[in-house]
């Protein structure tokens, strides 16, 4: 069934009964620096401290405390302090420290702290890097603070945003074959978990809508669970829900929408219905803090091939053009099948094309003739190309009375890929130049194609266009992009969506929020 990308560690508030288990980890981690059991006991039961433990599931019904962290926040005070944080040695490098820190930050913000302080050993650069990545800055150094080792303490501080300026948003994406759940805090990515049903579609050579919808239903609950775990949060920390309600496969979208609405009703939180394609643009916020506008966005996947002009992410997104027949990813899948390659076709054609000559066969570039450019300047068409490739294979084999050689196959794959990529990037660059927009943002699963990225980089550099390619896990369909767009709507004071919105398989990009 589903592949989840995080391990199963639980996070829960510490209870007095955890004392012995916590002390075991305390001794493993701090040796002669460890707190006494009596002190730790006082910490666990005090009213102004909040301790959390991370647990690993050992076998049926047995859990083991493998990490913990504690926060101090006096009622009425503005300051919060990280009392301690420890991860048992054999469980390090799995993100538990980050999850616990996110947990403490959420706790402190909920208790209206404006700052968070901590001390860290000067000889622990790994911990310092983690804290820096969470927004902590060094403000002081205490000489020989840690005894008996005589190690200095680095004092760090992070400002905490009030809840409404940095909302925690959980986003749900189910428009095609990926069940995505993402969590952001403002513009910061906290979790991005994807469960894909791709393998179930492989034998059909394309996404089967009913199979995708069935897979979403099974994957949603565990994917939400994993996303919260990855973020180190609970449902109580979520300020708003966001969900993609189109464009996409209607039956698939409905599963995500049904779940998102139930979440909103259960938690009594606002819900934001957002546009899937605009989400692909908005995801850049998670890497750059904003979407620089205006920008041209080229979104290429198995379901879409769209060229957008984004003047303002929330208020002014225009569709310049899109495919009039197959999506680019679909063309890769179909040609792969004709060539006897596996599904999905993109990575397979990329692999075979590696040793091929992209100039071996000059395949047609759809909608690039002058007469087409008048009417379809920014539109795409790949069906003619598909026919041309099939025809070329047929003629070649009939002429030589033999199947294609490895080299011929590689040349055809490379030439086909070049035709697709050339027309995609040519039209995207033309859109930038025509509209005097010096930025191009790429999105969608086909961005994984190495040749597409290389040609985009080359042509953008030649034309003085700044190219943005988000990390691959943010390019494919995912819930983080939906959460990021939802968070922007919250931060800009937009009203939540009415609870009775529907799904729209052809939702126009001009509708950013339904």
């Amino acid at each position, binding site marked *: 069934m589903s592949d989840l990308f995080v391990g199963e560690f639980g996070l829960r508030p510490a209870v007095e009964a955890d004392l012995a288990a916590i002390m075991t980890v305390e001794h493993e981690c701090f040796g002669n620096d460890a707190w006494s059991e009596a002190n730790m006991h006082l910490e666990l039961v005090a009213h102004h401290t909040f301790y959390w433990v991370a647990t690993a599931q050992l076998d049926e019904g047995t859990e083991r405390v493998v990490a913990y962290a504690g926060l101090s926040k006096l009622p009425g005070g503005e300051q919060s302090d990280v009392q301690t944080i420890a991860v048992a040695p054999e469980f390090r490098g799995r993100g538990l420290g980050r999850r616990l820190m996110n947990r403490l930050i959420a706790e402190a913000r909920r208790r209206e702290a404006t700052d968070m302080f901590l001390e860290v050993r000067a000889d622990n650069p790994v911990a310092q890097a983690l804290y820096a990545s969470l927004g902590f800055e060094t403000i002081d150094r205490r000489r020989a603070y840690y005894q008996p080792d005589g190690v200095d303490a680095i004092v760090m501080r992070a400002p905490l945003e009030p809840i409404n300026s940095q909302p925690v948003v959980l986003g749900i994406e189910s428009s*095609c074959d990926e069940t995505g759940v993402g969590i952001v805090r403002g513009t910061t990515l906290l979790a991005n978990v994807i469960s894909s049903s791709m393998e179930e579609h492989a034998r059909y050579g394309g996404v089967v809508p009913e199979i995708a919808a069935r897979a979403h239903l099974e994957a*949603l*609950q565990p994917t939400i669970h994993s996303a919260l775990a990855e973020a180190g949060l609970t449902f109580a920390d979520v300020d708003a829900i966001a969900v993609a309600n189109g464009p996409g496969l209607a039956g698939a979208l409905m599963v995500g929408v049904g*779940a998102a609405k139930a979440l909103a009703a259960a938690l009594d939180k606002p819900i934001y219905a957002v546009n899937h394609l605009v989400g692909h643009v908005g995801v850049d916020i998670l890497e750059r803090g904003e979407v620089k506008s205006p920008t041209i966005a080229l979104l290429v996947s198995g379901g879409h091939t769209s060229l957008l002009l984004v003047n303002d992410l929330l208020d002014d997104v225009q569709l310049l053009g899109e495919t009039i027949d197959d*999506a680019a990813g679909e063309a890769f899948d179909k040609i792969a*099948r004709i060539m006897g390659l596996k599904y999905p076709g993109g990575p397979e054609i990329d692999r075979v094309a590696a040793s091929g000559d992209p100039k071996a066969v000059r395949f047609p570039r759809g909608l690039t003739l002058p007469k087409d450019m008048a009417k379809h300047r920014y539109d795409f068409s790949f069906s003619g190309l598909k026919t041309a490739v099939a025809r070329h294979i047929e003629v070649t084999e009939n002429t030589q009375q033999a199947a294609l050689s*490895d080299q*011929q*196959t590689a040349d055809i794959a490379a030439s086909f890929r070049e035709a697709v990529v050339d027309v995609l990037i040519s039209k995207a660059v033309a859109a930038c130049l025509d509209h005097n927009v010096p930025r191009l943002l790429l999105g969608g699963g086909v961005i994984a194609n190495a040749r597409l990225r290389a040609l985009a980089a080359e042509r953008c550099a030649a034309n003085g266009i700044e190219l943005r390619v988000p990390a691959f896990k943010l390019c494919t369909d995912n819930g983080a992009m939906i959460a990021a767009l939802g968070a922007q709507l919250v931060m800009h004071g937009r009203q939540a969506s009415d609870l009775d919105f*529907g799904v729209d398989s052809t939702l126009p990009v001009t509708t950013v929020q339904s």
Partner: protein
Amino acid sequence: MTLNLLVIDTSAGTSIAILRGSDVLGEVNVADTKLHAESIGTAIAQALVLAGLKGSEIQAVVVGRGPAPFTGLRVGIAAGTVFAQAVGARLFGAVSLDALAWAALQDPELAAKVSTRTPLLITSDARRSEVFWALYTGLSSNGVPMRTDLPAVNKPAALDELLIDRNVDAVRLDAHTEVTGPATSQSFEGAAIGTALGRVAQALLVEGELGHDTSALYLRAPDAVLPKPHARYGKAEYSKPVLAGGGSTSNSDGGSTASANEVGGAE
């Protein structure tokens, strides 16, 4: 039983009920069979308001598993599953047709007619000129509809033959009007079944038989036709080339949608 029980069923319309013991605290029914995604959130929120409860006060959730047209059915199951997850409630599944049987058998006149030899046949529209159906021999002492088998899907004519083969003279009730059954059928309102499903769930809980399985009762495999093995245009068939090996290094393309001639309608 004093659990605050939220019932969600989208096997026909959108039906939400909140029960506590014998009390119905809130009930919302939207009859339209094509507006599940639109209705589900408002219907749950309204039912909570009617019941005077917060989501966190719901202790158990029961979802209707159908059988029913898939697209709408999934909306309710997804909503119930995630609602229970969000508030930490226990999650259960129940068969939607059982709720129709339960409601019908509340009529003493009809219940008196139903027996092992004259079971109650509940049918509902399965589209494609087929019906979902199940047979019931009455209510148990706790009020659980006694179903003879798992629900099934058949053409009405095939179902008739099947009943003749079993030598069963059933009392027939159709949940929908789209499929017109034999002349002996009575019409039956199937949209507002949330409360009835809740009663079935409460009775099953008493018997220790209420299950945690919330999977949709599809009863049909997804309609998808495998592509032809060789889609080349030429007539000649040459042996396939052996391609250079090496693992794929790049990731998925996100997948394309199988074209219309390869994939039939979902339901």
